[in-house]
Structures are given as structure tokens and as C-alpha cells.
């Protein structure tokens, strides 16, 4: 071996070592968070004083899906946090919502850089739990007594009996309804429909008068994925919907097929705004509030905002069969897995646990301030409810059959994403319900949700 060859081999080895060194992980350095002193410049402080002034640094990834969430952050969390936790230095990261939030959490999880506190979601809970990255809060909130502030503590528990996240309980009161403008209905000479066929006729009349009948977010399959599929099934056969949520039937069940066909029928008969399959959340709500559409299919989390418009009222999804009574059956949105959670890898579990209680309470204070119903008691005297909220709560509390949301309680992330994908296609009116059933039923068979 001559000198040149030896030099070349040595260079190659050096290169490999450098690559290996540069790319190897260093767990200790990536996860250590150095406490930060805020008063390091004060010369006369004693050592003890310095120690007590050290701030604990925490990272929070919050849900930032809509105006409510932004208001909670700006009007409640940020102003109250400094007063409540002077020893904390908190770095907020907006997480978006839905798939965006899930993807960020997945990325952080993969890089071993999970936020200390984050908004957990049923969509990615299972995988997060399997990886041992979400903390069981049961003992902590029992010891602190925070659990006693919930009207129904049992509702916080996952099917394994543990509590993984905290929220205001407002979710439980969210259900999809159809908001409408009373004045537009009057001018068009139509009344609130009681049956699905009447609903189609009302839409036809409105469309004939040049009014867009219904707006709802359809982009990325938002509507079909989160409420429409379930509503269209349960207005025909509530029991079939309960069975589907519990995995007792599949998508080939006649009542499920009929539900999907109702979506196709609405799309084909022009119930929705043109381009519904690409209509985003904000524009859909704006289309309704600016009276470009007569109705809005939406969850009641928008009720406090929409109640500010005098002409707005709501009605439940109309019945498609005698098996469904719109005054007795509702779909509810909540999931015990949606809420503020703590990473099991956090270096400051004590502070993080206190923080999730604080965050859940700020949510409750906000929803209470806008007149929403909540299950986390704030200690404040109940305020006077808006008439529309009163009407809503009377209807909602009178329901005898409460069906959990399919989107939050029965599907893994793949099934959820595929329902969204093909649900959006049905909204175009060019995709047959039969194709949807065929596609989704295959995915449903491979749904891993019920394996855990």
C-alpha cells in the first residue's frame, strides 16, 4: 500500500468519523433545560435569594383553531399566567388544530422534543400513549382536589379509567345544529323544516330565489369528517349510529349507506354553496354572517358569536325517519382525551401539572364569560344567559339519547383522514355514495382504534 493510498484511506476514515460524530444524538443536551435566573445582575443578593428567584421554563403548545381559542389565550391565559405563576417562564407555541396540531406533536415526539404541556387530541392520543409520552393526571388532580370542581368527574376518564387531559367541559355541550336567518326564511316564504324532505324543499326554494341555502366548511373534508356523516346517519337511524360508534356494525349497514346517500343527495340538489368542497371554516361562517347564505351547518361553539346577530336562530337536523326524534337525540362533541395534557418526559412535572389545571380553568372562565355551558365550576355566580343559549340548553338538556362523536371516539388517524378525504369528494356531487362506502369500509376494517 503506497503513501497516497494510505492518505486516501485515512481521509475517508476521518470523514466517516466526522459524519458519525456530527449526526449522533446527544440526549442529555437535547432535553436539558437550564433554569434561568431573572435577577442575576443584582449584586447584593444572597445565594438563597438567588435560588428562590430562579424561574422554571416550560413550553406549551396550545390549540389555536378559531377566535374563541385566540381570545382565551390573549384575554385570559397570558394576562393571568404571570399573576398566578410568577416563578414560571412560559414559551407558547400556537399549534393550530386538527391534523396540523397532530403533525406538530408527532414531529416533536419524533425529535424527542415534546412540549411540557400540550393540547391533546383523541386523534393522536393512542399512539402517544403507546409511546409512553402522555402523563396520567389522575393522582395529581385527585390530590389537589381539582377533580372535585368538575360537575361530572367520571366524564374525564378514558376507557382505561385514567385521566389524561383536562378541559373546561364546554366540549360536552357542543353539538352540530343548523343556524338560519329568520328574516331570509320569512322573505323566501319558507318555514323551519321538520323532516329531511322538507329541508331539501326549503333549500330548493331558497336556491330558486337566488339565495345560497347552506354554508358549511367542506375544505379538507371538515364537515363530513366531523359531523355531517354522523348526523346524516342518525337522523335516519340513531341506533345504527350508536352501533357504528361502538364498532358493532360497518359502513355497509343499510342505515349507514342511507346516511351517506343523503350527503350525496344534498350535494347533487344544490343544498350547499357552489365550491363547498373547497370552502374553508372562516369563509363559511362569514358567508352566513354576511347573509350570503340562509343557513349554516355548524357546531354550537359558534352559538355565542352568532347569537349577537338578531336574525339568527337554530334548529336541530330534521328527521329522515320515524326512528329519529330531533328533540330526543343529539350528537355530542366531547372526548375525555381532548384537553391540556402533560408530557411524561417533562423535567418539571410539578409545575406542569399545576399549569394544566390553570389552563383548563382559563378555558372555563372564558366560555363562562361568553355564556357557554361548562362542566368545570369556576366559583363564579352563574350569569344571565342569552335567549338563544337558553333555548339551546333547554333543547340539549332535554335530549334522552346522547351519541358520542364518531370523529373523536371511534376512529384512528388514518380512518379519520380517509373519511375527510372521501367525504370532501362526496360534497362535489360527482362522487357516488357507493364508492365512498366501498373505500371507507375497507379502511374501517383496518381501523386500529378498538384494538386498544
Amino acid at each position, binding site marked *: 500500500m503506497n503513501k497516497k493510498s494510505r492518505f486516501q484511506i485515512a481521509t475517508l476514515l476521518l*470523514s466517516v468519523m466526522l*459524519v458519525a460524530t456530527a449526526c449522533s444524538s446527544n440526549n442529555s443536551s437535547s432535553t436539558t433545560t437550564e433554569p434561568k435566573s431573572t435577577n442575576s445582575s443584582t449584586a447584593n443578593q444572597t445565594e438563597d435569594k438567588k435560588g428562590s428567584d430562579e424561574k422554571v421554563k416550560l413550553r406549551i403548545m396550545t390549540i389555536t383553531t378559531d377566535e374563541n381559542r385566540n381570545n382565551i389565550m390573549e384575554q385570559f391565559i397570558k394576562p393571568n399566567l404571570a399573576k398566578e405563576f410568577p416563578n414560571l417562564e412560559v414559551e407558547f407555541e400556537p399549534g393550530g388544530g386538527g*391534523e396540523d396540531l397532530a403533525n406538530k406533536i408527532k414531529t416533536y415526539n419524533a425529535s424527542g422534543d415534546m412540549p411540557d404541556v400540550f393540547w391533546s387530541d383523541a386523534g393522536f392520543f393512542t399512539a402517544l400513549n403507546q409511546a409512553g409520552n402522555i402523563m396520567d393526571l389522575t393522582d395529581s388532580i385527585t390530590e389537589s382536589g381539582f377533580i372535585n370542581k368538575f360537575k361530572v368527574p367520571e366524564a374525564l376518564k378514558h376507557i382505561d379509567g385514567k385521566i389524561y387531559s383536562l378541559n373546561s367541559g364546554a366540549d360536552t355541550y357542543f353539538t352540530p345544529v343548523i343556524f338560519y336567518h329568520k328574516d331570509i326564511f320569512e322573505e323566501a316564504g319558507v318555514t323551519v323544516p321538520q323532516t329531511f324532505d322538507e329541508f331539501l324543499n326549503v333549500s330548493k326554494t331558497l336556491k330558486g330565489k337566488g339565495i345560497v341555502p347552506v354554508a358549511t366548511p367542506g375544505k379538507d373534508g371538515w364537515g363530513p369528517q366531523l359531523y355531517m356523516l354522523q348526523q346524516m346517519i342518525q337522523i335516519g337511524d340513531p341506533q345504527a349510529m350508536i352501533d357504528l360508534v361502538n364498532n358493532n356494525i360497518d359502513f355497509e349497514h343499510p342505515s349507514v349507506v342511507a346516511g351517506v346517500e343523503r350527503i350525496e343527495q344534498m350535494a347533487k340538489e344544490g343544498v350547499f354553496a357552489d365550491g363547498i368542497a373547497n370552502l374553508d371554516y372562516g369563509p363559511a361562517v362569514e358567508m352566513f354572517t354576511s347573509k350570503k347564505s340562509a343557513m349554516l351547518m355548524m357546531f354550537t361553539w359558534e352559538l355565542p358569536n352568532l347569537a349577537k346577530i338578531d336574525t339568527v336562530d337554530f334548529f336541530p337536523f330534521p328527521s329522515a325517519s320515524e326512528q329519529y326524534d330531533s328533540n330526543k337525540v343529539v350528537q355530542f362533541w366531547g372526548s375525555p382525551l381532548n384537553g391540556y395534557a402533560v408530557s411524561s418526559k417533562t423535567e418539571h412535572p410539578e409545575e406542569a401539572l399545576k399549569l394544566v389545571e390553570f389552563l383548563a380553568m382559563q378555558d372555563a372562565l372564558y366560555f363562562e364569560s361568553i355564556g357557554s355551558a361548562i362542566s368545570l365550576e369556576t366559583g363564579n355566580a352563574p350569569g344571565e344567559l342569552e335567549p338563544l343559549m337558553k333555548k339551546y340548553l333547554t333543547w340539549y338538556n332535554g335530549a334522552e339519547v346522547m351519541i358520542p362523536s364518531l370523529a373523536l371516539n371511534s376512529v384512528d*388517524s388514518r380512518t379519520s383522514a380517509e373519511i375527510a*378525504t372521501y367525504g370532501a369528494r362526496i360534497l362535489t356531487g360527482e362522487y357516488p355514495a357507493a364508492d365512498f362506502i366501498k373505500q371507507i369500509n375497507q379502511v374501517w376494517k383496518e381501523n386500529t382504534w378498538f384494538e386498544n
Partner: protein
Amino acid sequence: MNKHFSTKMSITIFVTPALLIFTIFCVYPLLPQLWMSLHNHNGFQNLGFVGLDNYLSVIKTSSFWTAHKNTYLILAMSVLIGLPISMCFALFIDIQTTKLRRFFKTAAMFPAILSVVVISQIWVAFYEPNWGLFNSILRSIGLDSLTRSWLTDEKTVMMSIGLTFLWQYIGLNAILLYTGIKTIPKNYYEAALIDGANFFQISTRITIPLLQEVIKYVLIVSSLGSMAFYAHVRVMTAGGPGDLSRTVIYQMYYTAFDTSQFGKGTAIAVIFILQCLIISFLIQRFVAREKLEF
């Protein structure tokens, strides 16, 4: 001196730093992807080795082929429509007066310097079916029958997104080509004019042949840019309606992140990388093969 620099040892010394950087930042990140593509990974944990199952599974899905059809449609639009228009625009700029040239150069660059999100949102508004620009124009000239929901119609969605992409980058490519035109010696043109050549003859016999190195560069950048087409789709349609406007990159993202099938997502990524390498090789092999000196 030259003798020293052409020895194997000196070549090794000079090449090593670049090779190292390339290895660390370009080759090494691919290895975990390759490894992951052979495993069942849900984004949170590895659920076991599955061999080539991920590859076999992804190629069996209709969305995978829809994504390929869309990606190659964008590539074709970019290369067969975009590049010729950019070339025409570059030639057009070259024959303008100084003042107009300055205006056209600024105008051409403007869309390219704007954020993709801004551009996409503007075009979403243009395509809006109820009050958007295109349908409004069609209605105002009595062509109501041609109005449609551009971004939800299966027949028009991909072309509509592709048009936005072309609009954004045609100007930038034109500027690159124009810069190349300015490097061609003027005496070639003077000789051609003395011989009585017209604009078309000058363009096809002198300008375009002498621009082949620049054309090659623009072709590679446009092709790989088209292959990696994602952001416009994300903003304008989120791949929808359904999977109808997904590209390969979008399908990879959707599979990995939205459905938590990271093994399958990385399998798509590996297939995609191979395609990009093949396209780069073909362009290198067949475009501008002879080195021109002028």
C-alpha cells in the same frame, strides 16, 4: 503549479470538505428514511420490520397514481408550456427600450418574490365560484355556461392550480434566460443582421442554441421544482376535493402525517427521490451535451 493541483492527493484534499458537507446534509438524512420505509412506523414508535410491504402497499393505492398523474401534469405544463413562454418573454424583453426593459424585468420578478401563500390565496379568490374574477368575467360576457367551481371540479382543479404555478414562475425563468441572452456577444447578432437575418432566424439560429447551458439550468430547476410541487396545493385545495389534486409530495405528507403511516410515507419519499434522480440524469445526459465557448 498545475502539476501539483492535478495529483490524486490534491484532488482528494480539495474534494473532501465538499464531500463531507454533502454527505452530512444530503446523503446521511436519506439513510434513516430508507430504514424507516422498511418498517411499520406510526410516527411515534417503530412497530416492526416489514421489508418491502410498504412499497407494495403504496403502489396499490389509487391515490398514489393520481398523485403521479398530477405531478407529471405539472411537470409537463412547466416544461412544455412554461419554458417556451418564458423564452418568448425573455426574447421580448431583450428587444425593448431600456425603460420598458426595466419595467418588464420588475414585473416579471414580482410574482416570484411574493410568498406562495399570498399568491395562492389571491388565485383562490380568482377561482371562487360565486363571486370570483373568472366566473364574473364569464358571466359579464354572457358565457354563463362556462362558469364552474374551478377548484372542486375534477376536470379543472389541477389545471387551475398549475396555471397559478406557471404564472408565478414564468417571469423568473424569463429573467434567467434573459440574463443568458445578455452574455451572448453582440457581434454574432451584427453579423446576422448584415446577412439579412430576421428576428425569428436570429432567435432560433443564434440565441436559443447559444443559450443551451442556461436552458439546461432552467430546465433542471423547473423540473425538480415541479416534481416537488406542494405549497400551492396545500393552500389552494388541501389536495382536494378528496385526493384529486394531490401531488407525490402531498401524498407522501398525507400518508406519513395525516394517516400516521410513516413507513409508507417514507416509501413514497424513496420512490420520489429515485424519480428525481432519473429526471436529473436524463436532462444531464440529453440536454446541452456539447460545451460551447464563445
